[in-house]
Every structure is written in C-alpha cells, then in structure tokens.
C-alpha cells in the first residue's frame, strides 16, 4: 500500500537538497571553534548557514543563534526574557491560550517562580487581536509571546500589528514561528519582532535543530552555559550537519514559497470543502489567514483516535487533538480555546499537506474519510443520541 503522508505539521520529509547539505557537512569533521584548517573549514560552513537563515528572516547574521529545535528556542526566549526583565521589576507575561506546549509549559514553570501569566483568549475562529494585547500590557509587562501560526488549527496571528504595539510600548516581543517559517513570508524587521523561534524539521530540514533570532541589543541571558559557541550565548559544539541541512531546506522553502503555496492552497481548500460536506462536520480555525498546509475539522459523534487508526490502516498518516491521542483526559487545549465542547473536540482530525501532496491523494482521502466516519458513527451511542434529538 502506498503511504499518503498528511502530517507535515508534525514533521516533514527531509528534502534532497537538505540531505545533500547534511552529508557534505558530515565530511567536514573539524570543530568550528578550532583555529586550524579543519576547524576553519567547519566554521565557514556554519557561517554560511547562519547567513542563509538570517537572510531568510530579514535578520543580521549575528542575530541568529542555533539551538536544538523549536522547544529549546521557545524556552530560551521566554525564560531569558523573563529573567532579563525581572531585574527591572517587571514580572508579567502576556501570551495566548493556543500556544504550543513548549511555550505554555515554560510559562507554567515561570508562574511557579512568581511570574504572573496572562493567557489571552482567542475568537471562535482562533485569532487574537493586537488590541487585546495592547489592553493587557501594563507597566509590569516583561514579555509578550504570541505564536505566528498555530500548529493545530493553522490560524495566522496578526504578528505585525502585535509587534508594532509592543515596540511602541517598549515591551519585548517573542513569536513562536515554528509552523510559519518556510511556509509564509516572515521578516523580523518589518514585523517588529524581537525574538523568533524556528525549527528545522517543519520545512523539510533535519529534526533536532532550530534557531532563535534575537534582535541586536537584547542581552538575553543564556539558557545553556558552557563554551563560547554561538558568540558565547549558547554553549555546545554545534550540530553542523543538521544546521547546514536546515539552512539548505530553508533557502529552498523560501525560494519555492510562492510556487508551493499556489499548489497547496487549492488542495487544502478541496479537502476542507469535501470534508465539511460530511454532515455535522465543522472546520476548526478561520478560512482566511490560515497557513497553506493546514486542514482541521471535527466530526461529531466519533472519537479521533479510532478515526486515525482507520486512516492509518488505509495508508493515510494524519493527526488528531482528541484526549486519547493527547494521552490525557482532556482534548487539545487549542480546540477548547476556540470554544468547542469536549464531545466535539474529541472528534478532531488534522491533515497537514506539503508541496508533495497530489490531487490524487486528496481525492483518495475524500473517498475514504466519509466512509470511515459513517462506519464509526453507526456504532456510536453518541451519534445515536444526536440523530434522535434531531428527529
């Protein structure tokens, strides 16, 4: 059976160009910090990768710090900013209810240390506004952190406007752009971003590598202490092959962004239209301001894990925000934040596409899903009740 991979928000396949960059860098075994020829060779590769990532974001080379991925970047930015501003007597952090756990759990940890965390609610379509942020800012605000694109429902937040508000109020602004970079245009200067997290494996780069952009002049305290790598701001001998692979993947993603978007959006919309044509099915997240690759729907009366395993049996890799798949009692916090009741949130399905997704694959998914939903509904006492109440 051919595998249909529609879980690109979880991770992506590494691109041939990224793979090649990784392989080339493996051969360069020197330590970029060494002074000899072998070290210099590695340093030049690292320096080139940094320049490529910087140019992809509209940043300067010395504003890019390589990390182990999106989670580390989020932790570093948030913990660092909190500590930096605490010295100035500021102890409030503003964020949203739909952030990734890499942000939310970091905020929870800071809350235990005495920080006050304000999680802004989102609209039923899954957006916050710059006005909400502006109204929440006080003289004690240490940091605003709002994700650029949501990983579950694909909504793109008004980061530019939020950045402008923060800049005008003199408040630090971080954005988790892990699901955005390489998929939608990003420019840290134009968007007034002080810190930005990205992760290599979300745009066909390797896993376990990422970067944090820190605007020049922000003396963010270190998260990882040790050697003088990354200008003394992030210790540890750099993961050169992965960094080079990430830079190559990002350069490629940015070059092809327009072309890829033009290809993916019609497929995404075909899926959205086809799936929401199934009775009692809703789209999660607004249609406008949505990343090109995200489809998220909820089918009433069924549970997401059963659906996922049936899709898997049919060769389709997808994801869900149900409690069973999250490994907890509650369905995804994002689906609850857009106002869904538990019963409906349990029936969620996320399909995330890539430029390799084909129309045939989309058609196959649209052929298979309604049948599985119907089958599961037929054995569902919840669906039985819904149908009874309708009569």
């Amino acid at each position, binding site marked *: 059976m051919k595998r249909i991979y529609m879980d690109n928000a979880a991770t992506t396949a590494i691109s041939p160009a990224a793979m090649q960059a990784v392989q080339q860098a493996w051969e360069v075994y020197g330590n970029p910090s060494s002074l000899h020829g072998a070290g210099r060779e590695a340093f030049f590769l690292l320096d080139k990768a940094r320049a490529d990532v910087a140019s992809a974001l509209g940043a300067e080379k010395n504003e890019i710090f390589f990390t182990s991925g999106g989670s580390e970047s989020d932790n570093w930015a948030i913990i660092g900013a909190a500590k930096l501003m605490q010295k100035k007597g500021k102890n409030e952090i503003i964020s949203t209810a739909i952030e990734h756990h890499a942000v939310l759990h970091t905020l929870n940890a800071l809350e235990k240390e005495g920080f006050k965390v304000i999680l802004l609610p989102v609209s039923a379509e899954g957006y916050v506004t710059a006005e909400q942020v502006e109204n929440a800012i006080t003289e004690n605000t240490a940091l605003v952190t709002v994700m650029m694109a949501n990983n579950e429902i694909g909504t793109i937040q008004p980061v530019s406007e939020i950045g402008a508000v923060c800049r005008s109020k003199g408040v630090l602004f971080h954005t988790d752009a892990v699901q955005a970079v390489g998929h939608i245009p990003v420019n840290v200067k134009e968007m007034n971003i002080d810190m930005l997290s990205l992760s290599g494996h979300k745009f066909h780069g390797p896993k376990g590598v990422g970067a944090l952009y820190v605007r020049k002049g922000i003396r963010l305290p270190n998260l990882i202490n040790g050697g003088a790598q990354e200008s003394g701001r992030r210790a540890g001998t750099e993961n050169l092959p992965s960094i080079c692979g990430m830079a190559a993947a990002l350069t490629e993603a940015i070059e092809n962004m327009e072309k890829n978007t033009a290809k993916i959006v019609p497929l995404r919309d075909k899926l959205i239209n086809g799936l929401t044509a199934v009775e009692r099915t809703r789209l999660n997240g607004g249609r406008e301001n949505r990343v090109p690759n995200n489809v998220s729907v909820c089918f009433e009366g069924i*549970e997401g894990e*059963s659906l996922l395993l*049936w899709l898997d049996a049919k060769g389709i890799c997808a994801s869900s925000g149900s*409690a069973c798949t999250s490994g907890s*009692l509650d369905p995804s916090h994002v689906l609850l934040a857009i106002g869904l009741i538990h019963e409906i949130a349990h029936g969620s399905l996320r399909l995330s596409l890539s430029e390799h997704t084909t129309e045939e694959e989309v058609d196959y998914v649209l052929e298979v899903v309604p049948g599985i939903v119907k089958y599961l509904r037929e*054995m569902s006492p919840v669906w039985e009740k819904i149908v009874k109440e309708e009569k």
Partner: protein
Amino acid sequence: MIYSEKVMDHFQNPRNVGKIEDADGVGEVGNAKCGDIMKIYLKVDDNGIITDVKFNTYGCASAIATSSMATELIKGKSVDDALQLSNKAVVEALDGLPPVKVHCSVLAEEAVRAAVADYYQRKGIEKEIPGCSGNCSCCHLHDEHCGGDEE
C-alpha cells in the same frame, strides 16, 4: 503507542457490533466528555443464559476492542457469570493494553454489569450490583485515584 495484534484485530473486526431491539437488558456507561461511552445489549433466555449480546461504542481503538472482547467473553454464559467478568480478564484476553488505556477495560466491565443490573431490574429481582461511579477521572487516572489493580 503500540497496540497488540489482538487489540487491532478486535478494533478493525469488532465482534457483536450493533443493537438488539427487544433486549432483555441494556447498560450504558461512560461519558462523551471524557471520550468514551459503551452501550451493551443482552438477550437472556429463561435459564439466565446470555444467548445474544451486542454493543455500540464511542471511543478510541481500545474502547472498541475492549467492548468487542467483553461481549465475546460473556456470550453463552449465565448472567451471574457475566457479573464476574473483570477488566483484568478483558485485558489478558487482548494480550494487554497500554497503561493509559486500561480504563477502557474498566469501562467494559462496568458496561456488562450495568446491562446485567438492567436485566435484573426488568425482572423485578433485587440484586446489589456495584456500577460506574460516574466519575471519569476515577477510571482515567485509575492508578492514582482508585488503587487500580493493573500492573
């Protein structure tokens, strides 16, 4: 998370799915809010033997698989034997469940008991049958809250 082959078999080819219109006992347990509901229908003959059993389940793969296995285990048995069905027996018959899914087997045990309780009630026979407490977190967080007996 990896399910055993038995679980996948009972998930993909569930036995005894459906309803019994003229059932002699029906039991429904669980809560849609928590993500699983099981409904079991019994047909019982004059000797108290379960001649037919069907289920409807809303829930994850292990909820469907445990429902299916539980119905298999009580089919042809007496209602009193069915009352003895333990969640452990269901888990063992399925070659194990991941720890976070053990609550599904508890639910299956309770669904069977609820159906038998309904059977006795319809018969006008008084019988003390412990049922579902109605508190999901009890089963879901079995290890901490209920002193659960699973390993």
